[in-house]
């Protein structure tokens, strides 16, 4: 199955596109919390050569612990950074719905009715406390338009950029596929399936000129005990937050805290977004994540890694190259031009 890692990723990209094109498939993909990886792979454009054994994902969390910012007592790297390197993924849901992460994509038919709201994970919006994005009226209208257009696109902007393998941007990359955190003196590097993000720990380095706008923005950060504090500017706002269509403009600034538990097993992302172009006030998004350390947990979404081949006795987890755009199937404008 390991040889199919790249193909599976390919297959999933195609699935994303197929799902957008087909209402019946959308309803299958809708309930992401009960959809098995096998079901998701079913409509793949290219058959997987050797069927991977059915893997069970870790169950999605309906709630998650608060992690207090404070001292770091876990292992440190030689440059003093808390050692949090490894494979990580979010715990409560994917990119289908921001304010009701386990409630399915807005506007989709469900196979099973949703139970009471309090039985599902909370909104990713942790402030305001009502869990809603504080949109200006024009922006809310655009989000509602996207939520309709997403199922039957009549305008290129109704297509989720991620379906074209565009980078997930901030913060969506953190609740997309699993990702790798790499650490080096002066840097924390995130490697996502769609793109990568370099956080500079040297805050004397100025941000890029304002005119430069980037999918993943320009990041400066530092460690405060167990917390990586990051300042993001130069974000282009193009990535959208998910299939529910929320977004920021290119004028947004983001203050992030990645608060790591001292046993190194999980962290909470707490990001405060300030964007007077789109919102009436700043808001905060919280994303819980856990670390994956075993190749056996490879599940086609949160982890796609294998044990390295070597003569030694310790097990070493490694990940194939992360490629999306190049392997992506044709869709919409992109396919017409290809």
């Amino acid at each position, binding site marked *: 199955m*390991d*040889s*199919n*890692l*790249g*193909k599976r990723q390919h297959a999933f990209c195609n699935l994303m596109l197929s799902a957008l094109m087909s209402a019946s498939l959308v309803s299958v993909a809708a309930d992401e919390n009960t959809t098995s990886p096998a079901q998701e792979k079913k409509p793949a454009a290219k058959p997987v050569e050797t069927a991977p054994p059915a893997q069970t994902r870790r169950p999605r969390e309906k709630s998650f612990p608060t992690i207090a910012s404070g001292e770091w007592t876990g292992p440190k790297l*030689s440059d003093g950074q808390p050692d949090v390197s490894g494979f990580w993924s979010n715990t409560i849901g994917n990119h289908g719905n921001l304010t009701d992460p386990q409630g399915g994509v807005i506007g989709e038919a469900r196979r099973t009715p949703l139970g009471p709201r309090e039985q599902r994970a909370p909104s990713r919006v942790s402030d305001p406390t009502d869990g809603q994005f504080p949109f200006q009226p*024009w*922006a809310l209208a655009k*989000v509602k*338009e*996207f939520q309709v257009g997403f199922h039957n696109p009549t*305008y*290129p*902007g109704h*297509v989720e*950029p991620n379906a*074209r*393998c*565009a*980078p997930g941007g901030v913060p969506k990359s953190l609740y997309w596929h699993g990702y790798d955190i*790499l650490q*080096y*003196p002066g840097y924390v*590097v995130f*490697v996502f399936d769609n*793109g*990568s993000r*370099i956080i*500079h720990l040297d805050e004397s*380095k*100025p941000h*890029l000129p304002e005119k430069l706008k*980037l*999918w*993943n923005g320009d990041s400066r950060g530092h460690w405060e005990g167990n917390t990586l504090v990051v300042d993001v500017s130069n974000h*282009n*706002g*193009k990535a*959208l937050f998910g299939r529910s269509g929320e*977004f*920021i*403009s290119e004028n947004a600034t983001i203050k992030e805290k990645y608060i790591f538990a001292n046993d190194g097993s999980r962290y909470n992302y707490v990001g405060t977004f300030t964007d007077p172009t789109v919102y009436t006030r700043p808001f905060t998004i919280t994303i819980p994540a856990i670390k994956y350390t075993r190749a056996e947990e490879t599940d086609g979404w949160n982890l796609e890694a*294998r044990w*390295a*081949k*070597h*003569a*030694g006795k310790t097990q*070493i987890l*490694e990940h*194939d*190259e992360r*490629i999306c*755009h*190049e392997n992506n199937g044709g869709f919409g*404008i*992109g396919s017409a*031009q*290809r």
Partner: protein
Amino acid sequence: MNTAAIKNPSWFKKIGLTLLLLTHVFAFSLVTSNADAHDATKIPRLANGKPDFSGIWQTTSAADYDLEPHSNRKDAPPGPGIVEGGEIPYLPKALEQRKKNFENRATDDPALKGFTLGVPRGIYYPEPFQIFQRARDLNIVHQFGHSVRTIHTNNTEHPEDPNDWWLGDSRGKWEGDTLVVDVKHFNDKTWLDRSGNFHSDALQVVERWKFLDPNTIEYKATLTDAQVFSKPWNISVILHRHREKNFQLIEDYRYTLDYDQYYPPKPDKK
């Protein structure tokens, strides 16, 4: 030996002084003539003593325009090429394909679609790349496409059930201060330059990375591909460290440019 020298202390002193001077001159000549060796001791190193290639690097060569010697043309500056011996030893059929690629280079170069450049093209493509290095691996982030290549240096081997990868599978070993990387399991979708030099999925690349001084890397590679080339061939480029103040990579996901304009939503014009 003239015994007078021993009997005459002043003469002895003179000889001693001369010897001292000679020693100084000799020591000085060592410093000047062995400047390279002197610099070699100062190359950056990891805690484990291996050379530390961390930094942002770029070639100034015109290699990506055409690996082979070429006169100027409308879409390329002139260049002597970087192929040892001048020409790539194509098999006859492959040479025909290479000619077709050259004719269609304005549309068929995969880089025009923002595709991952592959190995070794990403190294001499004229955009910077950053090496992040630790004992177990080097991660290379290419500004172009922002693709990430991992070179494993932890004694792991090529996987038993490989895929065909855009960047191949890279396993490195240290030979003294030279990093030797064996790269294979490629797909056949990348080109070697924008003039249409190409390879098949049987490509194998053996790279040799070595510091010439703390700010310069000599990069050599041997390319083997029995489906396309009649014999292995070698290339060599120099990589320079970016030392501009606050220099950094700037993500270049140019494959998004065709649809950039549709995001994010904007207020309707009144």
